[in-house]
């Protein structure tokens, strides 16, 4: 009896495992098939307009791709600036000083409450009337950093508040001054908590950087638009730009996932 049971159980377990693996593979196959069919359908639709000229991609592709470098540069610089603003803003929002708290809260409310494109126009076109003239690239970086800093302020504030109170109390019991507590105990842990949100914002910023094209900064979208319109190949040009944005977000999402795994090592 026991021998028979021993004989049956492993094969049932095996069968179940095999069935699950098969259903997973089946799902993945159909999933990938759907992607391929839809993308092929779109490509076919574009090809059938009779307007698609492959020579355009060869001739103008490099110029459009060159814009990606500027896009990445703008995004990296802006996210650093935004992070700095976010930490300051979060500390300001948590401050007991009513003036600082008021200023930080106004910053968050005002900047989250106005469209990014309005802010870009303002910084580039309106500030000169007050005597502040910024280069297109500086204006673009500043606008993006300023805007995303407001959103990330709230994220950082939540991250700081999410650090267990016990951490702060233990540090106070050790006699640590407030500034040191924030710098050595709270902020590092808060940063780990907010990394997914920051990564998310960075990926979002890669796309929002396309708005800077309105101040004639020759980044990815500006080039695609300019070149596509003047050569009657706007579909192709914009597709190239869209694919590049997509590739950039995939790459950075990948790095973000690795960073999160790295930071979570202490949890295991």
């Amino acid at each position, binding site marked *: 009896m026991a021998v028979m049971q021993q004989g049956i159980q492993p094969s049932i377990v095996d069968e179940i495992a095999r069935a699950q693996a098969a259903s997973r593979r089946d799902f993945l196959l159909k999933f990938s098939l759907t992607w391929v069919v839809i993308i092929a359908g779109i490509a076919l639709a574009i090809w059938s307009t009779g307007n698609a000229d492959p020579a355009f991609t060869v001739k103008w592709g490099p110029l459009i791709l060159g814009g990606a470098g500027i896009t990445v540069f703008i995004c990296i610089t802006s996210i650093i600036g935004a992070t700095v603003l976010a930490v300051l803003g979060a*500390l300001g929002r948590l*401050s007991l000083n009513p003036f*600082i708290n008021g200023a930080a809260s106004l910053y968050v409310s005002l900047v989250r409450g106005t469209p990014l494109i309005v802010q870009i126009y303002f910084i580039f076109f309106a500030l000169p009337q007050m005597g502040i*003239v910024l280069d297109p690239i500086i204006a673009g970086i500043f606008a993006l950093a300023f805007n995303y800093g407001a959103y990330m302020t709230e994220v950082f504030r939540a991250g700081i508040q999410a650090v267990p109170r016990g951490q702060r109390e233990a540090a106070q019991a050790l006699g640590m001054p407030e500034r040191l507590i924030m710098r050595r105990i709270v902020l590092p842990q808060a940063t780990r908590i907010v990394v997914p949100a920051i990564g998310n914002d960075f990926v979002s910023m890669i796309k929002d950087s396309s708005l800077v094209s309105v101040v*004639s900064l020759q980044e990815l979208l500006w080039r695609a638009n300019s070149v596509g319109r*003047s050569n*009657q190949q706007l579909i192709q040009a914009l597709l190239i730009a869209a694919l590049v944005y997509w590739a950039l977000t995939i790459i950075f999402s990948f790095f973000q996932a690795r960073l999160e795994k790295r930071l979570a090592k202490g949890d295991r």
Partner: protein
Amino acid sequence: MPSRRIAVIIGTFALILAACGGGGGSSGEDMLARVKRDGVLRVATDSNYAPQSFLKEDGTSEGFDIDVANEVAKRLGVKAEFQYPQWSVIEGGKWADRFDISVGSMTVTEPRKEIFDFSQTYYYTPAQMSVIADSGITSLDGLAGKVICTGEATSYWQWLQGTLKLGDGGAQTPVPNGATATTFATDQDCAQSAQSGRRDFEGFLTSSTTLKAAIDAGAPLAAVGDPVYFEPLAIAIDKASPPHAELNAAIDKAIAEMHADGTLSGLAKKWFDGVDLSVKQ
């Protein structure tokens, strides 16, 4: 105290911003001295305005305006550096010293003379009306009550509004009765929109050179009627720029020399199919 640290950081940030702003316009020196010292003449032009200025695959641009700007810079002993702001940004003035001159086929009009200091005319173009090829319209009167496309902030748009006052007082044909205007960021956008199949307008008004380039590129347009006016086109400097009397005089002199020694004629014939538009028709 953390709040004081924050205040110091914010204060430094504000100071940096203010420093960025104070950058331009130091002493009372003329722009010409600065241009010669930097060895660079910053020129604003269009990136999508064939055959006057348009992009090449390597990101630089070519065209009649580009050649003229390069030649003027050469005669000043410097190099031309091009920027491509939107036309409405150039035409609106208040450049905030972002660039020195505009070589963008700007029509000299009375209102614009109050915002810009113009050089002497470097070429003239007929303002040519055109229609979508299959619309069946064969004369200017056929455009009565129809929609005509122009570039934003161009003299063509002003003509359609009835507010165009040419700088040399030239004659203008009356606007077709009840015709209304629609605009795109730049003239070629109208042609490219028609070429892509859109039918938001029946007529298109631009310079004859731009129209010809559009038709050659495949836009379904046909010229209709005689030119509605002839426009004098010149190089412009924003009056709100730093002191530039000497720069203006130097550019004017360069243009005069280019007329006299035939450079402008040669460039015009090269880009405008052998027609010498640098002299008045």
